[in-house]
């Protein structure tokens, strides 16, 4: 059986930031997945013991979305506390 080369194997982190309010800190990372023309971005959100993954639709700038997603993820965690 040959090597399992899939889109997931060529995952690369292209951006990362930490955001949050007070004690609620979250890390948002942006990964690029796959190769053209099927290349896509994925945002991974982590914090407060929770994890969220957002597959960025084509046509949406993942770098622009990253801080907004991080902030909203942190606020939604805070709202549930």
């Amino acid at each position, binding site marked *: 059986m040959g090597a399992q080369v899939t889109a997931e194997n060529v995952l690369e982190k292209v951006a990362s930031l930490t955001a949050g309010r007070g004690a609620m800190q979250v890390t948002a990372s942006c990964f690029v997945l796959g190769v053209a023309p099927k290349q*896509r971005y994925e945002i991974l959100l982590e914090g407060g013991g929770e994890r969220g993954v957002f597959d960025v639709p084509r046509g949406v700038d993942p770098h622009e979305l990253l801080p907004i997603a991080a902030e909203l993820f942190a606020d939604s965690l805070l709202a549930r506390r």
Partner: protein
Amino acid sequence: MSSHEPPSVTAAPQKPDVRDPSLATVLVVDDEESFHRTIAKYLSKYRRISAYTGWQAMEALNKHHIDVVLLDLNLPDTTGFQVLDQIRRERDDVEVIVCTAHSEIRNAVEAVKKGAFDFLVKSFENYQNMAEHLRRALEHRRNKRELLESRTQKHWMREAFQLMEESQSETMQMVIRLARRVADTPLTVLIEGESGVGKEVLARYIHARSDRADGPFVTVNVAAVPPGLLGSYWFGHVKGAFTGAERTQIGKFELADGGTIFLDEIGELDADAQVKLLRVLQEREVERLGAQEATPVNVRVLAATNRRLSEEVKIGRFREDLYFRLNVLHLTLPPVRDRVEDLPSLVRLLLAKHAGMMNREAPVLGDDALQVLQRYDWPGNVRELENLMMRMCAFSPGGEIRQDDIPIEYWLPTLNQAADELVQREDTPRLLALAVQQFERYFIRLMIARCHGNRRLAARALGISYTTLKQRLREERPGADVGDGDDVTPPRSGPLKADLRAGRGD
């Protein structure tokens, strides 16, 4: 035939649906028996009610569900125009086709001006085309009704949005603030909350505040779709994809293209469907069953559940990778018992909504009744409150809803609280006797209502004498005239709490 004989009914109209002619009901108003006999041959597909005078026509309209009226202009007791005027004044859900032997243009103009859908001259040709005339009238009626329903639904949805925005509950305010901020992003939102809290309303709110508001909002109730059909339902199929696929059909995701898809009860997805959804969320494209290529879709996904999905993940019933993709933004709607401060505005909205739908004046909730509702824990949340308010609109149109009007099941927390208070007192009254008396009052009222206000019939059904029944009603409302008349009276539960506080035991 006598002009005041009751209208004859050829078949009992039941749940008419204008899409199926056999279920539509046509009221034929004409004084000539020969016309009734002739037209019956051409209306065999429809339920038909015959009236021979204007008075009978209005009686039939009040008693039966009529879809279309076939109206003659010459009637023994009035003119067809007067009947048409009255129908238009009282009913906007009935189409009228004037059918007369008098073919003058001025009659046709007058009929249409007064709101008739069509004007036909009595002729063999028109009789032969009667099914087509009726089909068009029913189609027109359905379009009118759908437009009205759509406008009404939009109106009440806007009111519900406003109510959420003006919520007095801190938790709710926090949810709404977040919802407003997430609306303009493409991020996936998971809405959690007990059954009936208004998860779909919140999803619609997010859609309405988003830059996709002009796009479609497609709701998919996951639990309602049989697992075997889910693939075709979500993604569509091409012609010939399977036996019976006679034409290409697009699925829900493609229908929602450019808008929002709301996946309700997402926790009910089986393992296969979870894989399918995961793939759509990752790839943002769908593949119709039998298609060679995938179709890209630009869809914002909102999901809702009344289960704790994180718990479902722990026990292995829900895929972790799918959960992470739904868990990007997580909004939890509070149950009604945790936002009782919103009850007055919720009640006002629901009473106005249902009174409007029933063409009645909205009743007003009294302060004492509100207290009873605020102590109740609302396991069915807003949906349960809505059902109660619908009942209140039916029973107390235009009046004030008092605590006596609230059905007994909503009193239990109030009774518990009163019982707690009484246990602390030394002069504890006969609590059981009070509770029995309370139930008896409620049940008597219930039976009277069930017997359409006929107290003699209610007394017989209850197995008590009419005198005893009247006596019970007098005890309930001292000084009130409980007379001999039959009226429709809503069931009341009685002011038990006031009795308990006063320590009255019998």
